């Protein structure tokens, strides 16, 4: 077996083992390449295709009659799109903030070396095991004025009690926040709890020696230590918020009217049921743009500061 082939890689193994060594060097690449090829094609390829479609006049089936940015212009004039985009702002913002706050509070309370912590933790974490469809349906019943909480409280004798957000177009988006927070805050709690357990006790003891009170220790020492956890939690939660689709479908169906529409349901409706693939693709591209606009600066600042710190 000759080793005449030009190779930039220094081959220091015995001539008989060259093939095996070379295989070993290539093996990771060989094993990874199918999955890389698949994700290149099915994720990035389709993103590109969606972008191309958003520049065409495609209606029921994709066509390649290019119309420039006309679909985006139509989208900007579409009132329903603005309702969906505003809703995403309200829903995403409230969902992430409330989940973080509630999750942190629960985690700190659970971290006080209480009895039955394992059982309590499971109780809080359990909603995450449900699918959003189940959450949506259950909350739909709970929030239905004729059936759920309102009917129950009225049954107790408070005849004037009203809680009809589900059928109020101005409030329906907040019902989504309620259900989503119920589902996800236990998970955020688990993340924070893991973070709290990872904090070195000696730092806290040092702070105690310096005479800091408990709230001050949490505010100035513990919470800053949890920064990486906040980072992961925000990443995960904002993903959940932006792709929320099943929850809307199960809980409000986008209604009343289209008052609780989110971009994901808007995109699905237009691309798949209203035969407007071009418009749907344009909205999908704007969703992608929105995700990138939030994530890239955040990723950049987090990763850079971690490298330096």
């Amino acid at each position: 077996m000759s080793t005449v082939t030009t190779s930039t890689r220094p081959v220091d193994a015995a001539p008989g083992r060259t093939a095996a060594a070379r295989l070993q060097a290539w093996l990771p690449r060989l094993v990874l390449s199918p999955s890389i090829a698949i994700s290149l094609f099915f994720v990035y390829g389709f993103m590109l295709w969606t972008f191309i479609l958003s520049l065409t006049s495609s209606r029921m089936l994709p066509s390649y009659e290019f119309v420039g940015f006309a679909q985006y212009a139509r989208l900007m004039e579409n009132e329903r799109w603005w309702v969906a985009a505003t809703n995403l702002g309200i829903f995403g913002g409230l969902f992430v903030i409330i989940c973080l706050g509630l999750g942190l509070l629960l985690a700190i309370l659970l971290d006080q070396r209480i009895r039955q912590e394992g059982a309590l933790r499971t109780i809080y974490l359990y909603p995450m095991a449900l699918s959003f469809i189940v959450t949506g349906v259950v909350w739909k019943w709970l929030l239905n004025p004729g059936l759920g909480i309102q009917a129950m409280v009225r049954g107790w004798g408070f005849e004037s009690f009203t809680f009809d957000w589900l059928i109020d177009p101005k409030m329906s988006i907040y019902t989504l926040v309620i259900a989503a927070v119920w589902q996800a805050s236990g998970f955020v709690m688990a993340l924070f709890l893991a973070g709290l357990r990872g904090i070195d006790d000696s730092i806290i003891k040092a702070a105690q020696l310096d005479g800091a009170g408990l709230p001050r220790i949490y505010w100035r020492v513990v919470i800053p230590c949890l920064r990486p956890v906040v980072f992961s939690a925000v990443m995960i939660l904002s993903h959940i918020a932006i792709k929320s689709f099943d929850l809307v479908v199960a809980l409000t169906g986008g209604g009343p009217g289209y008052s609780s529409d989110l971009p994901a349901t808007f995109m699905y409706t237009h691309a798949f049921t209203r035969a407007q693939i071009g418009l749907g693709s344009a909205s999908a591209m704007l969703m992608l743009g929105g995700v990138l606009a939030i994530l890239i600066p955040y990723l950049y600042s987090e990763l850079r500061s971690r490298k330096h710190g």
Partner: protein
Amino acid sequence: MCAFKQPLTLRKTLLGLAVAGTLGATQAQAGDVEVLHWWTSGGEARAANVLKELVEEEGHHWEDFAVAGGGGETAMTVLKSRAMSGNPPSAAQIKGPEIQEWGDLGLLGSLDDVAESEGWDEKLPGVVANVMKHDGQYVAVPVNVHRVNWLWANPEVLEEAGVALPTTLDEMFAAGEAIREAGYVPLAHGGQAWQDATVFETVLLATAGNDFYRRTMVDLDPEALGSEQMIEALENFKRMRELMDDGMSGRDWNIATSMVISGKAAMQLMGDWAKGEFTAAGLEPGKDYLCAPAPGTEHSFTFNIDSLAMFRVSEEADQEAQHTLARLVLEPEFQKTFNLAKGSIPARPDLDMSEFDQCAQKSLEDFQRTADEGGLVPSMAHGMAVRSDVQGAIFDVVTNFFNSPDMSAEQAAQRMVSAAQAVM
């Protein structure tokens, strides 16, 4: 084997022998027919099975391609991806203006041979035949005719409230008040966009009549859409909301029907598929429940026709199977079985209706009468009048207006005008 005029290679000869062998065995060319449909609920599925048996009796192979869910939305998504990959099924449940869209794409095959030998032109009413044709050629076959503008009522509740079945909008509103006072929900409804649109088109017909309906919902005439009559219709539509209950948000239509069945609600405005729910509950029309044309729309018939569109197939045997399917769909046996199960009426008015109940008989009678009088109009809410993107834009305005407390009828009419102009 005399068809082979050129010198044969051994392989071709063998192939020829093999083909001849199969032909000899089955006597007729057995083709495959794949049918995409969403007749998946109990009675519908049984009815579709009848068609399958009929096709198989003729020696062809039926490949069932049922896609459940979402009133056919899922099925349409599947159909589009199949069509894009160049492999559409031979027949698919497509209806209304969508037939034209698929026809424009050049994907549908002509059924004129079958239509001619079976005399479809004589059997089908003109309005129905027109929906089935693309460029003057039959490309689809009608399965049934649904009437959308029906009023369903529970006679016991009406009696307790001391009101008769309303025949005009004013009577409807008056009856609603009396029913509410008696402690019932006057009108059962589900807060979904298509249900809102169903009520809207019915109220529009009742307020402004057939010609105005056609000008607005079919021709999308901006002048008519923004006119006083439209505003009046929208105001009447909004008043309907007072007859409904708070829990309607997102409710499915059949749940609303069950409110009428159980006596919680007095009436429902819904197409004749609602009858399936009454029948399933073991009720008898005229006695346990009432059916009547929606108030004020006695001289109109909003139709919703299900049909099977036929895609172009290349294999001759498969084409034969497809044409057999098309012929069988319009034959009395299938028309009867299917429509008895579905609550609709046969697409052929010449059939014996004695097995059908009185609601269906009334429906057929009205169908023929309105066809003569010019009151036969396509349903906008059920995708018979306009393309799906226009329909979607109208749905948005209708459902938003219906649900928003501070949108005026003038604003809604104006939005309808701009929605119509945006798609022109």
